[in-house]
């Protein structure tokens, strides 16, 4: 018998045919398909009993109640809490995506000490004991050198118990430099002080009950301000209710409004006065309020017998025709807007908090407040509401000689000094002060940063970065490796908000006195600590009167004590409403005569005449010269891009349209008319230049942008966090530049001059 090649071929054939009649190919194919669904890196949700835990999102100042679906110790899904008084179930994309921050790679996992060059991002992990003793050692040395007043703290908020602990720490340590990051609150606080005599009170707007919302550039549906509250209020809009949006760009809010009025940017104050003119001229104002509870509406005579101009005389000159010439809007449209506003059942005019760029224009803010006063809608349902925060039951700070002397020194940011006596915080001015000082005279020798990311969010951010980098010792309390933490010498990471307790004060702009409690949903994932505990520990290790000012065992004890009898409700319900009803008009105003001041007598003004105190329209020039910058750059807010201290998580970045961000390139929006003049077409790459810097961008033609305006989304262009977040687009703050209000020092610029050139 011969065996040759053909036999083996035949054997192979037999094997081949045979195996087709066995389960081998079919079963293996099936199994491989299943195997490919089980890669080790594919996340598989936990299984087990589901629990829903209530807490509050703290990633922005919106204070939305959330419920978190958890399985064992794993948070799975976040949804809006339907029984929370702020958002009633609504939630913004950042809130939904915030789990990505809990488990994502941008967390700072242990205390860190800088090892490389400043800003290089090279750190080594250290223990908590080591970190706290290093920080207190440095602060102790600074204090002993007689420079206690050169410690500064930048905080995202000055409300709530953690900022209060920081303020207390500075008080006991001996520094006046507690600085809140700029926000729409600044101008509202000053307007409330001037017109109503209130210091440190909250100004909110009852959007839920208002029947006519006249919004001066508020991104109510663009994720600014308190997004959950605003989304929810709009979702309850029925046919009888109106939203009018004044804005130079067709935003989400403008697109959903009943009327969009594209007034020239910076002229909103004139429009408010024009509306007031029509209301006053036609007698459509609330006579009860004006006659009984207001001052300075009519012309008035002071004690010295001098006659002063009243608000009525001021608005007399703002005829619809004049306002039309200023704003570019149709005079009839202004006239009918005013009539509709005044005749509405509960009209409210809003500005400030919810703007993407809160230009702290005091005149505009006073004029908008005055509109609410004219229609008698202050402290009424559906109106502008003023309320105080709950008082914390905290003992007086103990101060030694150094503390008393230090806190009496002028602030590094010039707020409260003779130059800007009525301003509280002026972070925008600090970079310039720091850049102008030499190393030895630097007015800030040590900086603590909590709940803020000023290196990213401060306008002219590259200068700010260079200025902050001059500070010899920076401590960051950030949970994430943000731009500011990257610059720090020591990072003392806070818990993610789903890991610890924190009270959440009433959100800016929400017309309700609600305090919420953020409570742990999962165990801390890493070696992080509640910032409240850490500041108590630092104070204690400094000892003396500083330690004595912090007698609490830990932050949770302090929190319980601070809220006294409210704490039970706070921990049980997750929130407490500490003032059910706003004060009636006869008790609402803390001015000298107890009335609403249409004429703000206490206004610190650049001039001495009546018009410089009254909210007259003043044309504001924005930074940059007209010769080089024929265009104006304005930032815009998108609900799909987080623009605050916390960057856009990748889940949100995935939702951004390809004509806003494509790969790493950001698109600016310009009107086709502007594009024609610059010889630019859709998708072209161009270079945008402003006095602050330049950037390569692509061009998106959009009819909804006013000619001459370049609109750029805020919140992109991060350089830190993680590789999944950094280097996407351009940071608009790097192109913007603040311009100080002469009397208040606040940034009053609505944009910056810019030029655009085809690349």
């Amino acid at each position: 018998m011969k065996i040759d090649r053909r036999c083996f071929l035949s054997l192979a054939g037999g094997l081949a045919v045979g195996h087709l009649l066995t389960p081998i190919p079919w079963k293996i194919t099936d199994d491989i398909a299943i195997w490919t669904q089980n890669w080790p890196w594919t996340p598989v949700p936990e299984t087990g009993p589901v629990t829903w835990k209530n807490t509050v999102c703290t990633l922005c100042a919106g204070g939305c109640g959330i419920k978190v679906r958890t399985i064992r110790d794993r948070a799975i899904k976040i949804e809006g809490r339907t029984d929370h008084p702020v958002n009633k179930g609504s939630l913004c994309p950042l809130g939904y995506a915030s789990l990505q921050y809990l488990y994502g790679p941008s967390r700072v996992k242990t205390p860190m000490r800088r090892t490389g060059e400043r800003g290089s991002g090279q750190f080594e992990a250290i223990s908590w004991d080591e970190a706290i003793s290093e920080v207190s050692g440095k602060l102790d040395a600074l204090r002993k050198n007689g420079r206690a007043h050169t410690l500064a703290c930048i905080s995202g908020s000055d409300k709530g118990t953690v900022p209060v602990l920081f303020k207390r720490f500075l008080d006991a340590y001996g520094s006046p430099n507690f600085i809140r990051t700029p926000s729409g609150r600044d101008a509202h606080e000053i307007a409330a002080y001037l017109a109503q005599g209130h210091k440190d009170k909250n100004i909110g707007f009852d959007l839920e009950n208002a029947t006519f919302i006249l919004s001066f550039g508020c991104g109510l549906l663009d994720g600014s301000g308190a997004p959950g509250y605003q989304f929810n209020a709009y979702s309850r809009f029925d046919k009888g209710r109106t939203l009018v949006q004044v804005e130079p760009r067709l935003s989400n809010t403008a697109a959903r409004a009943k009327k969009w009025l594209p007034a020239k940017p910076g002229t909103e104050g004139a429009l408010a006065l024009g509306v007031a003119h029509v209301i006053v001229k036609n007698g459509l104002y609330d006579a009860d309020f004006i006659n009984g509870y207001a001052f300075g509406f009519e012309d008035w005579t002071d004690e010295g017998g001098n006659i002063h101009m009243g608000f009525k005389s001021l608005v007399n000159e703002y005829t619809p025709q004049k306002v039309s010439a200023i704003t570019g809007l149709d005079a009839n449209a202004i006239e009918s807007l005013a009539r509709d506003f005044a005749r509405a059942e509960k009209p409210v005019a809003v500005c400030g908090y919810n703007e993407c760029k809160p230009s702290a224009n005091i005149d505009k803010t006073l004029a908008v407040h005055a509109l609410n006063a004219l229609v008698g809608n202050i402290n009424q349902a559906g109106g502008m509401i003023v309320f105080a925060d709950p008082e914390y039951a905290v003992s007086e700070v103990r101060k030694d000689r150094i503390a008393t002397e230090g806190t009496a020194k002028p602030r590094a940011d010039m707020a409260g000094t003779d130059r800007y006596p009525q301003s509280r915080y002026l972070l925008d001015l600090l970079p310039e002060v720091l850049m102008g000082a030499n190393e030895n005279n630097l007015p800030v020798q040590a900086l603590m940063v909590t709940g803020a990311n000023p290196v990213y969010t401060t306008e002219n951010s590259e200068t700010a970065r260079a200025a902050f980098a001059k500070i010899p010792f920076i401590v960051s309390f950030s949970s994430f490796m943000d731009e500011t933490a990257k610059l720090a010498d020591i990072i003392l990471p806070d818990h993610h908000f789903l890991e610890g307790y924190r009270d959440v004060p009433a959100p800016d702009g929400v017309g309700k006195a609600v305090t919420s409690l953020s409570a742990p949903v999962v165990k801390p994932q890493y070696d992080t600590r509640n910032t409240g505990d850490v500041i108590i520990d630092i104070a204690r290790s400094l000892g003396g009167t500083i330690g004595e000012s912090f007698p609490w065992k830990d932050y949770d004890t302090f929190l319980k004590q601070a809220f006294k009898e409210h704490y039970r409700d706070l921990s049980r319900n997750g929130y407490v409403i500490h003032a059910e009803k706003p004060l009636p008009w006869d008790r609402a105003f803390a001015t000298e005569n107890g009335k609403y001041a249409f004429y703000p007598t206490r206004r610190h003004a650049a001039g001495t005449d009546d018009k410089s105190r009254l909210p007259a329209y003043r044309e504001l020039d924005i930074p940059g010269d007209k010769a080089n910058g024929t265009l104006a750059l304005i930032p815009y807010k998108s609900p799909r891009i987080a623009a605050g201290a916390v960057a856009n998580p990748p889940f949100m970045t995935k939702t951004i349209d390809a004509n806003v961000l494509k790969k790493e390139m950001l698109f600016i929006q310009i009107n086709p008319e502007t594009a024609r003049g610059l010889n630019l077409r859709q998708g072209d790459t161009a270079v945008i230049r402003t006095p602050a810097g330049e950037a390569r961008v692509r061009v998106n033609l959009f009819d909804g942008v006013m000619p001459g305006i370049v609109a750029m989304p805020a919140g992109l262009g991060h350089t830190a966090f993680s590789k999944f977040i950094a280097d996407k687009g351009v940071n608009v703050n790097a192109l913007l530049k603040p311009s100080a209000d002469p009397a208040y020092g606040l940034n009053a610029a609505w944009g910056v001059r810019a030029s655009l050139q085809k690349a």
Partner: protein
Amino acid sequence: MSTQTDNTSNTPSNAPSPKKGATGWVILAFFVIGFGFSLLGGWVGFPNMLYKEVPHPIDFNHALHMDLVFDGCNSCHYFRADGSFSGAPTLNECRDCHQFVMGTDPNEEKFVEEYVLQDKEVPWNIFAKQPDNVYFSHAPHVKGAGMDCAACHGDIGTSESLRPYQENRITGYSRDIWGWEMSRLGEPKYAPRMKMMDCVNCHVEQTDSKGSCFQCHK
């Protein structure tokens, strides 16, 4: 050799040359050997290579427990308040009774010593575990259609000892899903098979519709 020489030395002619290599029968025999080897390997060897026997951490006696509980299967495998199904009990649930060794069974002793006292979850082998892309809810089957547990899980509730568990080396799932019979023919050995077509067939039988993809693949 000679044939070769003959062939080459002969003047080429048109007459067909006789095949001098392996004969057709031999080639066929090789084919049959290959064929047979494949069948044998595929039907007998392959299953043994594909599956590995995994011992149970504890040889659980369902019958014994059924006598002691009040609510049948539901006593330990229950619906949670939100309608989801608990599956295999967790250590905490077992611990309600088994804080200490109560009987004389070595399995119970092992359970208490190795798991309860060490506060360690038992890594039970789950016969019916499905891949993650399959969404299965017990509620519509048990509560809605009133099916018995045994209809899908076999009569495990009355067993005194756990049946063998074999794990698919490629997928990691139980052999019960495909079924112990590689041909998937005939009555299943222990419990109904649980591949997608098994779900579909039953659904067609019971509801006249196999349903939509997204009902199970969400």
